[in-house]
């Protein structure tokens, strides 16, 4: 099993969730994060004092999935989250040793 974490633009969240549902992903966890990268921030002005805001609002989506769905899920995210402009984000793939469903105690792929 794998755990993928995708950093995406906030307004793409609904699209990505739908795209993932279509390839059979049933659950995911979302976190509001701030990203720093190549995408340029903007300037804010408070009584003439200018602040450059480098940390931009992003959304992190975490999905645990079976290896077999991985490719489909990755391309679902890539397609639905892409705008083509700098700042679209990244997908990180990590190994996942075990999953447990708290409600039932099930483990492994049946817990997803």
């Amino acid at each position, binding site marked *: 099993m794998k755990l993928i974490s995708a950093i995406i633009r906030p307004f793409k969240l609904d699209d990505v969730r739908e795209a993932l549902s279509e390839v059979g992903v049933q659950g995911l966890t979302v976190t509001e994060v701030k990203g720093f990268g190549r995408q340029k921030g903007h300037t*804010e*002005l*408070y*009584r*003439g*004092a*200018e*602040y450059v*805001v480098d940390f931009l609002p992003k959304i992190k989506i975490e999905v645990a999935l079976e290896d077999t769905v991985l490719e489909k899920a990755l391309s679902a995210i890539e397609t639905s989250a892409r705008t083509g402009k700098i700042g679209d984000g990244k997908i990180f793939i990590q190994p996942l040793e075990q999953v447990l469903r708290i409600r039932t105690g099930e483990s492994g792929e049946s817990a997803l």
Partner: protein
Amino acid sequence: MFKRILYLVGIVAALSGLMAQANSDVQSDAFHDGLILLADNHADGGATLSEEVPVAMAEAEPALDSGDTAWMIMATILVIMMSIPGLALFYGGLVRAKNMLSVLMQVFVTVSLMSILWAIYGYSLAATEGPLNAIYGGFSALFLSGIDDTTMSGTIPEYVFMTFQMTFACITPALIVGAFAERIKFSAVLLFSALWLTFCYVPIWHMVWGGGFLSQLGAIDFAGGTVVHINAGVAALVGCILVGKRMGYGSEAMPPHNLPFTMIGASLLWVGWFGFNVGSELAADGTAGMVLANTQLATSAAVISWVMLEWFSKGKPTMLGAASGAIAGLVAITPACGSVGPMGAIILGLIAGVVCLWACTGLKSMFGYDDSLDVFGVHGVGGIVGAVGTGILMAPSFGGVGYDDGITMGGQTTTQIIAVLVTIIWTGIISVILYKIVDGIVGLRPSEEEEREGLDKTTHGENPYNTQP
């Protein structure tokens, strides 16, 4: 003119000699007919006493006017609303979340403490006649003795006049806390406010409104440009310099944590300021109507000029700019609102918006002080614009009410400048002393650790927002 400079020299001398002989210089010929006169005097923006005395003498004791009283009760309430929640929110929204409650608390408790001090001795020292009458009143109304529900002050009960003035004494020290917000001890705020009320607010009040020497000079300050705004602005500037900069000032971003709160605060200040300005007429009459219109127009004009200047110079018109412009316009019209006409008010507002924006940016960065919430830039500088502008824009050619017989625009403007300078010098010097005293007794500044963690947690043991599940 020469006489005026003499006064100025006199007051500086008086200050150096710690007020000992201030008295002998100016008190001589004035006779001060107590509270009824006081009310008139205040309403007339400080016209010289000598002119008024005979009139006041001739008049029978004026009867209570229920309309004037109704308005003055409301005006009093409006000025309270300016401080709480108005000023508290205006300031609170501008600090970082970790210091939100500390600012709310400083304003709230300062207001409470000043109320009590005003009743116990402030009113007496400001508004009665005393041995040092050029500068201070006397002790006859200590603990409000001599006042009951039948005592009058013009056409309104004296209790109403006293409480109305109490609200001014509440908000003025509260204005100052914006200058050293986020890095001051709570005990220092309370102690300083109490001392400052006693040694700066009360004497300037008495000098300008209470029959002291500035009112005799003919300085016009309808609702408190010098007494309130320049006074607080100068103390603020001194304070932020003596307390020192916030940790991380200049290197870390310190954006306002909640601009909607600041906007609510600015709006309530605007709304409440009608109590402040129109209330200073002490009656519901034609002049009150003029003050009402002037206050709205100057404020609106300053919003427009501040926002437009930002828009053209920085490319973006900001909400904080609009809110700050409103306060700048309100400050500037405060001394002028009983003397200028509506078009003069618009002109004054346009100027105030531009000048105060510059004071909060150019001037501040030129000298590098950390006036956290721009108390000096808005209240100090805006007050000066208003006080001096009064002298010019009250001319009939600008639609103003015109000058007293024998007074020229130049003469009045010079008088205004003298009043401004006296206030700056008096408060500048005394405030330094008071901050040093406070620093000696309780200390001004919290520890670095406390400042970093935020004053809410460390001083007040509270957290403003708890939205965890």
